[in-house]
């Protein structure tokens, strides 16, 4: 079996899982950027995110896998779907109707970037056979045992990270606790405390910003100012409101006038009976044409 120029006799279970997850992620990513329907794109992106969660599990980062599913697939993508549905944007612009040059040029550019990244990684990691000039080759060892300890274990270091302020986790303890959310939590609350607080502030600002930006400014209709009662909606038959409306329409309520008014202005809405003269109403000019069964 050969991947990236490196020959592996028998793939291990982890490698098989990795290959399956990566292949599905790449195919789903390609599907995501080629679907016409934005909802389909969002669902394919969910597929990609689930594969990446699997890769996190493979990388011994179960907390990030859960975070990926909860926050990305669960919250962010649902937000996307909400906006797509809310704005009824399913029928987006067709792919490349106008920007023919962009459409033609983007794919080679993307392929070029992919090839470049692959070549750089292959060269840097020694997957590639040709020897590089001295000083150019950047060897990234595949076996972490070969990596020298980034932070040597300080003498007298205790069992907690608090005894090692600012120096990161001792390698032995990382190896011991890695994969446990507890280790990541301690790391976040000690060495990354300030970024953690700044991140919470960013979230607060984002909440305020989203509310301010997405709020719809409702213009107040001018007709509301007249304190009229619209009879257009009517009332349930037999209810006290229906009886009151009947009295008003029959002209049995003194001081209340029923007028036909077109509330929508120049809109082609049909006029409907409108009650004025309630307490607090401004006196209506007599030019207002009364209509309907008025006393």
């Amino acid at each position, binding site marked *: 079996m050969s991947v990236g120029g490196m020959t592996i006799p028998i793939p291990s279970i982890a*490698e098989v899982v990795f290959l399956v997850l990566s292949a599905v992620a790449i195919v789903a990513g390609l599907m995501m950027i080629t679907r016409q329907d*934005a909802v389909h794109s969002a669902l394919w992106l969910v597929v990609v995110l689930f594969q990446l969660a699997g890769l996190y599990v493979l990388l011994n980062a179960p907390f990030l896998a859960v975070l990926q599913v909860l926050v990305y697939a669960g919250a962010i993508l649902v937000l996307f779907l909400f906006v797509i549905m809310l704005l009824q944007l399913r029928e987006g612009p067709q792919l490349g109707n106008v920007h023919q040059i962009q459409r033609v040029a983007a794919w080679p550019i993307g392929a070029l970037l992919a090839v470049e990244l692959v070549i750089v990684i292959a060269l840097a990691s020694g997957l590639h056979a040709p020897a590089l000039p001295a000083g150019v080759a950047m060897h990234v060892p595949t076996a972490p045992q070969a990596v020298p300890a980034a932070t040597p274990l300080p003498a007298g270091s205790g069992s907690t990270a608090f005894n090692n302020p600012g120096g990161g986790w001792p390698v032995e303890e990382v190896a011991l606790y890695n994969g446990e959310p507890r280790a990541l939590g301690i790391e976040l609350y000690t060495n990354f405390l300030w970024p953690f607080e700044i991140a919470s502030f960013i979230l607060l600002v984002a909440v305020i910003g989203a509310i*301010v930006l997405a709020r719809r400014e409702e213009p107040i209709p001018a007709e509301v100012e007249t304190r009229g009662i619209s009879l257009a909606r009517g009332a349930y038959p037999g209810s006290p409101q229906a009886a009151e409306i009947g009295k008003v329409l029959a002209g049995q309520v003194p001081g209340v006038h029923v007028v036909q008014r077109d509330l929508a202005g120049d809109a082609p809405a049909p006029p409907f009976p409108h009650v004025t003269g309630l307490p607090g109403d401004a006196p209506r000019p007599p030019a207002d044409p009364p209509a309907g069964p008025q006393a």
Partner: protein
Amino acid sequence: MTSSDMVAQVPLEWYLLVSGILFAIGMTGVLTRRNVLVIFMSVELMMNAVNITLVAFGTALNSLAGQAFVVFVVTVAAAEAAVGLAIIMALVRHKPTVDPAEMELMKE
């Protein structure tokens, strides 16, 4: 099973290759699509590709910094999605289109 065993089973470069390919796919999506929502999703894909790199390096180097970075990236991505989608909603309400070429409010 410790992290050393896991990374020894799957070479670090494989993660980097997958990350690079996904990043390129995301960039292609940003360049080709004319739906601003799909462009937004492509940007999210690019961020996820970088996250894979961060976690892979962190695990390979026996450091938790990579995972901590990813936590912050996810946080910023959530904030970005909230604000960005709110901006898109406001834009579409002003002018019902999702084509970024037609969103030229700032030109007027």
